[in-house]
């Protein structure tokens, strides 16, 4: 088993709040790792820190054996990592197609000046939009989509990044069953393609169904980890949830 992502004694505080408190976890390559914990236990903060959204205070973050002291978010492409946002963050006044294309096209400012998008980019974008069922909405503005479609477009951008490590922050929250099913399939397909996935989710049925490994956080700390069935039957885990 190869660790594709590790944290060691990771700390992140906001004022007096220890959102992440000396957290050490290992993410195994090619698996779906569930990340659960009560509200405010630091799951989103962990994803924010891992994706360079804001810097951590101390501790180590190791990607495929490379220790990254300072995570700059634009380097996510180099380190092959991407994420979704729990609070959806689309490029609202741009079209659905452009929301995907911007993730596919040239990153260098000079080269991008001389590129619109190639046929190849357009085909990739259309394939992705078909996969998430938004192909007919291609020229609509992101802001005109329904909540469920917006969640799907977040997933679409992740697919466009084609990263090796994908961090999903509550991708199923508030969705109708058919959309949940669609996203489940997408995540399972990603696993089949060999991607390493971290999945934050509250619904234990989904966790049991999708995850190979489960990490439970509470108050920024690691509470338990291991096989989902086993972890979910542990007493401290049950207490953390019931005591909420």
């Amino acid at each position: 088993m190869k660790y594709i992502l590790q944290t060691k004694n990771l700390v992140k505080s906001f004022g007096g709040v220890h959102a992440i408190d000396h957290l050490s976890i290992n993410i195994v390559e090619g698996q779906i790792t569930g990340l659960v914990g009560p509200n405010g236990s630091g799951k989103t903060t962990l994803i924010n820190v891992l994706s360079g959204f804001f810097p951590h205070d101390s501790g180590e973050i190791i990607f495929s054996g490379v220790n990254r002291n300072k995570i700059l978010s634009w380097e996510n492409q180099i380190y092959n990592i991407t994420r979704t946002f729990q609070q959806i963050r689309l490029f609202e006044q741009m079209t659905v197609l452009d929301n995907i294309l911007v993730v596919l096209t040239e990153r260098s400012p000079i080269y991008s000046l001389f590129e619109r998008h190639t046929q190849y980019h357009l085909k990739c974008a259309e394939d992705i939009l078909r996969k998430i069922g938004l192909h007919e909405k291609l020229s609509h503005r992101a802001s005109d989509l329904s909540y469920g479609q917006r969640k799907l477009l977040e997933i679409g951008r992740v697919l466009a990044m084609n990263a090796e490590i994908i961090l999903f922050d509550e991708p199923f929250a508030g969705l109708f069953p058919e959309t949940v099913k669609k996203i489940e399939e997408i995540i399972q397909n990603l696993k089949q393609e060999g991607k390493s996935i971290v999945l934050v989710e509250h619904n234990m049925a989904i966790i049991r169904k999708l995850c190979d490994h489960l990490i439970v956080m509470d108050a920024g700390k690691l509470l338990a980890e291991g096989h989902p069935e086993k972890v979910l039957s542990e007493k401290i885990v049950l207490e953390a949830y019931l005591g909420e």
Partner: protein
Amino acid sequence: MEYIFHIIILISIYGILALAQNLVMGEAGLLAISGAAFYGIGAYVAAIFATKLGLSIITTLFIAPIIAGLIALVIGASFARFRDDYFMLATLGFLMIFNTVTKNWEILTNGSYGIPGIPKPQIFGFIFSTPLSFVFLSLFLLIIVTIVSELIKRSSFGRALNAIREDEDALKIFGYQTSRYKLMIFTIGAALSALGGVLFASYITFIDPNLFTVNESILLWAMIVVGGMGQTRGVLLGALLLIIIPEMLRFVGFPTEVVGLMRQCIYGLLLVFFMLYRPKGILGIYKL
């Protein structure tokens, strides 16, 4: 007829300036209030190089954008860490420094006396001395700037600028070094504004520091907000309306001094009115 040519020339010059401002503010969402400074840099480069070094205005049409662009590159790089209102204040500071320099660096700028006797453009022995010939020159430059602006808008670069306007932090997550994009469009915007400055200096033949104050920057803001941000047609309509509306007051019979005073009020009122009631502008599709 001369009067109509005069209006067309002004609309072309402000069309150029407004398109440049739109690239920075409408496309990339950068609240730059330094538009008048790069416009002024263009005008001063033309005036100084033409009157002191005897270069032709056509030559300065190439030199001024380069100088303005280089200055923008340095300024933009040092402002890179500022966002939104801080960026706006920083660019306002730069504009005020520019105003102070033009007022006080007398050897170069003649200070408050200004620079008179700026020549008309001349190429292959042809002098653009008649208003009609100047109409063609300014429309020609307006068309070039419109094409450049459209090409940028339609490129992947333009799409990334829009994404920066929408959510810069989210775009970074997808691997974009957004500060480079912002610096580049700030530089391009400055270079294009300088073209407007050269045209203006050569058309009016006299410039002084009072022509390039924050009032001019606000006028550019008003043009793109009224016409419609992020839309070439809208921006050009904004330039047209904001030049024509104050001129109409003259026809209604207001004396020239009153028109001069009312002009600023009209610009300010239009800006506030549109931001409150129609933030997308007349033809626009985006808001800040």
